[in-house]
């Protein structure tokens, strides 16, 4: 990549230093917005840029901001830094190395919806990052970029970090709000959505770190400039977190629409030991397994193309599975994760993940029969469409796609004898 928009520290190593960041046009967007733009104008620019949420759902960011209920005050911004999806580690790199661009994004969002307080909800394990951000926020206060009466306009803004404590579900925006309110991190009913009923019941915008990090450049350089990146419907750049069976795992900032092949073989350096690629999980553990055939490898990674090969782009946490990996083992891993992280609020997810765990364990240990595999599929199907939030719905993606697309792996696990027995 010739130019970085988000991982700018890779080009400007000291961008985490406020002086360096400001030398590189840092906070000009914020200054411009606060001093010369109406809040709605900021929202309009973001809307026009085609920026979509990078946390996974891909909801148009500007549209979300425009939904904010202007009849209820105060408004809040909550930055979602609860990066917990297995295979995702992009927000962490941004916050560690390019913190000001992220913070400026938060501040722009706050200005756009006229919030005076913004919280950055970090997963509890990001204890050091929270301390790091706190120092950066203090610097911004000293520099007059945060606080009361900013640039003499009367607008005031404060940022606070808030640490979670080890609950994947808090990445779900309403669970995060509950958690921030000091309650169990269990998702709320939706509707109402946070822009009308969010933190403390007040209108709130919740955006992912990466999403917000895009905003300063969009405001500074304009929507049209941003649309120059990516595809028609998936504008902009995306950080792809590449992990699993690949030679060079890591974050790769690429335009949306880059193919899997390019990511894996050009950037990621291919599969270790020259082994064959077997499957791709494009959205972390929540993802369906894509059979890594030629067609799949040539699929552009954007919000529209990935579904065509039977998965979602989500947070673009691409986990590479090579031929040495057994799919029943992999499924057992993901189900253990979801079972551990299920909040327990709704029945299908709480009981279903627990039941699936028993089944995947039996299958993985080779103690199962084909009936168990079929039962697993039944249970997973039974969960679908009935959960309160996306966690439960996502927990079955790998299971169903795994059984459908890698049937031979399961057959090998349960042995041939039972197969014959269950033949009609």
């Amino acid at each position: 990549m010739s130019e970085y928009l988000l991982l700018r520290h890779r080009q400007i190593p000291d961008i985490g230093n406020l002086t360096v960041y400001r030398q590189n046009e840092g906070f000009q967007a914020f200054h411009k917005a606060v001093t010369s733009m109406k809040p709605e104008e900021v929202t309009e620019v973001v809307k026009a840029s085609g920026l979509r949420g990078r946390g996974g759902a891909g909801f148009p960011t500007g549209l979300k901001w425009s939904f904010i209920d202007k009849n209820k005050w105060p408004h809040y911004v909550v930055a979602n830094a609860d990066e917990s999806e297995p295979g995702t580690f992009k927000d962490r790199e941004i916050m560690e190395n390019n913190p000001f661009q992220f913070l400026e994004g938060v501040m722009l969002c706050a200005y756009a919806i006229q919030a005076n307080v913004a919280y950055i909800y970090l997963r509890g394990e990001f204890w050091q990052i929270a301390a790091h951000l706190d120092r950066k926020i203090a610097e911004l206060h000293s520099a007059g970029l945060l606080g009361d009466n900013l640039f003499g306009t009367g607008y005031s803004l404060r940022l606070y970090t808030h640490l979670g404590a080890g609950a994947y579900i808090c990445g779900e925006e309403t669970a995060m709000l509950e958690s921030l309110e000091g309650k169990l991190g269990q998702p709320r009913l939706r509707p109402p959505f946070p822009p009308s009923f969010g933190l403390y019941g007040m209108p709130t915008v919740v955006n992912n770190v990466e999403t917000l990090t895009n905003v300063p450049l969009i405001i500074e350089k304009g929507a049209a400039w941003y649309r120059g990146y990516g595809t028609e419907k998936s504008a902009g750049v995306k950080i792809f977190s590449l992990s699993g069976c690949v030679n060079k795992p890591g974050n790769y900032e690429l335009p949306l629409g880059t193919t899997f092949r390019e990511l894996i073989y050009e950037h990621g350096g291919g599969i270790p030991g020259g082994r064959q690629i077997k499957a791709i999980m494009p959205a972390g553990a929540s993802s369906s397994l894509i059979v890594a055939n030629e067609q799949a490898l040539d699929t552009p990674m954007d919000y529209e193309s990935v579904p065509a090969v039977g998965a979602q782009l989500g947070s673009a946490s691409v986990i590479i599975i090579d031929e040495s990996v057994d799919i029943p083992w992999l499924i057992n891993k993901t189900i253990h994760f979801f079972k551990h992280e299920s909040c327990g609020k709704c029945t299908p997810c709480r009981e279903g993940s627990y039941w699936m765990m028993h089944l995947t364990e039996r299958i993985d240990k080779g103690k199962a029969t084909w009936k168990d595999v079929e039962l697993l599929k039944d249970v997973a199907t039974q969960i679908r469409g009935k959960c309160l939030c996306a966690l439960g719905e996502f927990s079955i993606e790998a299971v169903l796609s795994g059984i459908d697309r890698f049937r031979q792996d399961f057959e090998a696990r349960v042995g041939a004898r039972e197969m014959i027995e269950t033949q009609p």
Partner: protein
Amino acid sequence: MNHLAEKYSEEIQAILAKYPADQKRSAVMPLLYLAQRESGYVTKTAMNEIAELLGITATEVASIVGFYSLYYDKPAGKYRIQVCTDLPCALRGAEEFLEKLCENLGIRVGETTPDGMVTVEHVMCLAACDKAPMFQVQSGEGLSYHENQTVESAMALIQSLKKGASHSNKDGHP
């Protein structure tokens, strides 16, 4: 008498200042971290103290402790070494790493070394999938990541922890 409120009055004020005055309950998570830093786990006394500070019941505080996996209601080793064995890490050998590490320490996963210094556990994804095998070390001093580990490097770290040497990782955050 509220022990925490006495000992950490400034810190508690700073925490409470983050949230609207009528939403004190939001401070429960940071206060629990404070309590855990104090005792290594959240004691029942601390739950009562926090409940009193925030005007909620001890049960409501306990619910938070129970729900979130980073709060502990029981003591363990001084240092909790938590190895991520989730899918991306497991694909890069985290499970073997954990097994070997435990073997070297002579304990099983979830157990504490006889000297009470180190507890080894496995955890779910820590957002460091590209740098596996990795683990975090949790203690009263805070929480730090240790990435791209080998059993040797981990053992060396454990040795230095046991000796009381301050542990800092390459990121250098205190």
